[in-house]
């Protein structure tokens, strides 16, 4: 059994399937997917990694961001459940971090140190294409994803992948390729903006992110746009740009 209500689930699926909006923003979309997944299965953290043109997994969005969590996503560039899921196109479910040292010597101890107990990774796949992985962390001993929740998360991942790739089917990849490169660059801008805000306000980068995200939500602007303004035209957002 799952604890997710059918109505809530249906809402989320519609949200996830709808990429055919004029001003589609890949980072915003992935943020939404990560956030919805985390709340649906009550996971402390969910992240999304997408493969760049070299086939390397790059972190793009998460349900929440702090330096320690970011590091966990970045480490999976080299090893970890997401890389396994990406390469094998098969999900990694209920991996016990306390026992996963031999499997992921770099990732597992860091994840355990961050307070997580279990980890799962779902490939973003459609037939033979795997474009990335969705990462779910669990923080309670013995907590695992119930079979129904596993199905739900994989279905969300599948719907999101279909939605992203259908543009590619129609226009032979140009749109998704452009979006992906744009998103990869936006991720860099977000990090630059964290640093700029941290410097101006004398806070750490995690606090800087919270300030930036709060501002984006209050003003109903995209996170990437706010980040870009912070770094290129600070006069436009005095609240963030001035101490």
């Amino acid at each position, binding site marked *: 059994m799952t604890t997710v209500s059918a109505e809530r689930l249906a809402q989320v699926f519609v949200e996830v399937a709808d990429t055919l909006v004029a001003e589609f923003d890949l980072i915003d979309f992935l943020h939404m997917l990560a956030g919805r997944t985390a709340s649906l299965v009550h996971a402390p953290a969910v992240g999304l990694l997408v493969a760049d043109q070299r086939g390397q997994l790059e972190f793009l969005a998460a349900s929440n961001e702090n330096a320690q969590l970011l590091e966990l996503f*970045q480490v999976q560039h080299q090893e970890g459940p997401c890389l396994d899921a990406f390469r094998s196109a098969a999900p990694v479910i209920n991996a016990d971090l306390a026992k996963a040292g031999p499997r992921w010597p770099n990732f597992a101890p860091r994840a355990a140190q961050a307070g997580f107990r279990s980890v799962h990774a779902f490939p973003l796949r459609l037939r033979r294409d795997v474009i990335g992985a969705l990462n779910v962390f669990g923080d309670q001993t013995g907590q695992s994803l119930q079979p129904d929740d596993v199905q739900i998360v994989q279905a969300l991942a599948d719907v999101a992948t279909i939605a992203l790739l259908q543009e590619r089917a129609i226009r032979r990849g140009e749109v998704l390729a452009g979006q992906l*490169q744009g998103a990869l660059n936006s991720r860099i801008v977000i*990090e630059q903006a964290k640093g700029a805000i941290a*410097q101006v306000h004398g806070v750490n980068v995690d606090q800087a992110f919270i300030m930036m995200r709060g501002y984006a939500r209050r003003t109903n602007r995209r996170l990437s746009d706010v980040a870009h303004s912070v770094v290129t035209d600070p006069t436009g957002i005095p609240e963030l740009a001035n101490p």
Partner: protein
Amino acid sequence: MNDRRARVLALIERQPASPDADAGLASYLHRLCAAAVGALTASGAGLSVMVEDGVHGLTAASGPDVAHLEDLQFVLGEGPGMDAFAARRPVLIPDLDHGVCCRWPAYVPAAYDSGVRAAFAFPLQIGAGRLGVLEIFRARPGSLTTDELGQALTFAEVALATLLGGQNLPASAGTGLDEAMDSRAELFQAQGMVMVQIGGTAAEALSRMRAHAYAEDRPLADVAADLTGRRLRFERDCP
């Protein structure tokens, strides 16, 4: 350094230097364009350095026709390269006959007349730092394959690294991203901090960080960690 990058650098090295060009940045970028043409079976490649308000400076091109087309884009104030720079993402037009004449009503006929049937524009950028655009042109319509797209993006990366390093650091030094792979977020965060500290652009901030790393003989990732850990800060240069 990854394989793709090494291959692209080798392709560039194999290009002969143009006899009437002086050595240095312009010559290297010209050879980069020539190498891209070969690697991507293109009819031409052009690179334009741009600043934030769209004004452009140096242009390198594989040949005079492409150089003319690059200049024309800026004279007309429209084109795939300008759009890619403004939108901060590649603009890929596999067929100039399909649906783009309204987007660039003056540029498309001019490009078409000069034999261009496909155009692929890649912004040269590192987050908020934008330095220009690299364009690949073909005389036949068709998409870039996944592999070709990867190659084109690698050429763009090398072009970016070259522009970031100026003539003082070899292109093989990279942007520092390869070295700092595990701590990329921290590298960019530090870059943002330095931008505020020195009151400079993203490119200038990265230059200061790399110069410091080079002078202290320390990995760039360590310099970034010191900056975010507030053990190190830079000051504005005295005028």
